[in-house]
């Protein structure tokens, strides 16, 4: 069984802003938005981790995105965390070209939180009706 966390820390030593080992099987790594793409590619393709899902949260400082990966051999969930500070127009590069299974996950975050995923092949409504009012994102807190 590989020490995947060790390998990630070694490869992205300069990019990791913060590292937290909350418990043996729950690890959190903070990255800048621009560095997420390379980290995801390494974790999925080189280390063979499985993408569980991506969580988006509307925080006062910005839109926080967590990319949750599972290393099934050890049972660890490795979450890459990043913050999109521009809440009026949050953008990040899509990971769908890398991981096909991310398509629906990113569509959902786009419609519920308003994050643009650059390069996503099919960014359209998934859960909400097609004529849902534009700019109205149900999971945004300022919306209330």
């Amino acid at each position, binding site marked *: 069984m590989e020490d995947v966390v060790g390998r990630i820390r070694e490869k992205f030593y300069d990019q990791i802003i913060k590292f937290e080992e*909350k*418990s043996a*099987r*729950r690890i*959190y790594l903070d990255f800048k938005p621009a560095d997420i793409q390379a980290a995801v590619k390494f974790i999925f393709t080189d280390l063979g981790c*499985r*993408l*569980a*899902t991506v*969580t988006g*949260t509307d*925080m006062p400082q910005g839109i926080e995105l*967590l990319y*949750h990966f*599972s290393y*099934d*051999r*050890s*049972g*660890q*969930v490795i*979450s890459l965390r990043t913050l999109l500070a521009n809440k009026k127009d949050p953008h990040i590069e899509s990971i769908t070209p890398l*991981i*096909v*299974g*991310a*398509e*629906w*996950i990113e569509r959902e975050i786009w419609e519920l939180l308003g994050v643009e995923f650059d390069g996503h092949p099919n960014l359209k*409504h*998934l*859960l*909400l*009706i097609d004529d849902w009012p534009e700019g109205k994102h*149900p*999971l945004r807190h300022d919306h209330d």
Partner: protein
Amino acid sequence: MSHKVVVPIGPYHPLQEEPEFFRLYVEGEKVVDIDIVIGYMHRGIEELSEHKHFDQIPYSVERICGICSSSHPYAYVLAVEDILGGEANVVPERALYIRTIVDELQRIHSHLLWLGLAGHFIGYNTVWMWAWKYREPVLDMFEMITGNRNHYGMCKVGGARRDIREEDVPVLKKALDDLLPAVDMFKGAVMDDPVIQARLKGIGILNKKQAIEWCAVGPTARAAGLNIDVRRDDPYGVYDRVSWNVIVENDGDIFCKTKVRILELYESINIIRQCLHNLPKGEIDANIKDIPAGVGIGRVEAPRGECFHYIKSDGTNSPIRHKIRAPSYMNVASNKVAAVGQTISDTTITLAAVDPCYCCTERVAVFKDKTDKKLMNGWDLIKLSQEKTKKLQERLNGGNK
């Protein structure tokens, strides 16, 4: 001649008009592309959680899906307990056993339910009736220990809400003993039937590479050779204290998906028996009063695969964020490759093979491209599937004479 095909599955619960859930594009008899439209079940549960107290949330997440109604609350309480230091450190031992027993009973009822529906789709209505008949005693057991046939309300943060009484244990044991011959019967009826083999082998294949790309989980992934199971990989409850096997097959077709589910029935019965045998005395509730600020992730192996919950707390009574990812979310999307290349008569069983938490098994219809005239609806497509089985039966039985 090309048609725009929209496939309806099940006249039972989906609305018979638009919206189409699965749009299949066919050329002649073969499916060449598929567009999947969801959202008919979307009720905004994640947003509702932000306005509820931590102890109110198990009730609402239980109602995400009626079939895996113990998985979602279990994954949720695991996420909150993750903030508190982890289930094993927080929850009393007896409660761990109770949670595991309920979780495995749920797996039995869910797999039997699927077996029945799959039987119906390919025209074996007897399988449907028998599978659901043997499901009833399992629901009776749920009613005995939790008070309800479905929606059990057993999980709470810090333990279990109800105890299993001493007098219920022998009743449970007997019910499991009575179930075993039925499972043997299903195994024989399904696995050894040459018509079912001809009907399901080589159909609806999701191979290992595709299962990885689409991040598939559960029996769908294990049938493709992916050896993953949250109960073993990231143990919770008492799964690391009882002995059981992860069932993996390699061909990725519907026959393998069926085989995985039937063999898992045996494992579930085995796990529950061990739990009942080793059930310790003691408290069932840690009486948690406050949830500190922090983040937690909880996941369980629902009958369909990994059920993933994430909670972010700021120390108040409600979470700031509750993220829910059901297993079918990943598996249904993988139909984009599994259903392509199949014939129309195989689509109902292919789409049903990922066991799409039934909430998602919506409708399909066949349209004529330019005129938008509906050619076939779900009822017709199930009939097509059942007719194919009949023809196979005739061919195979005729050959034996």
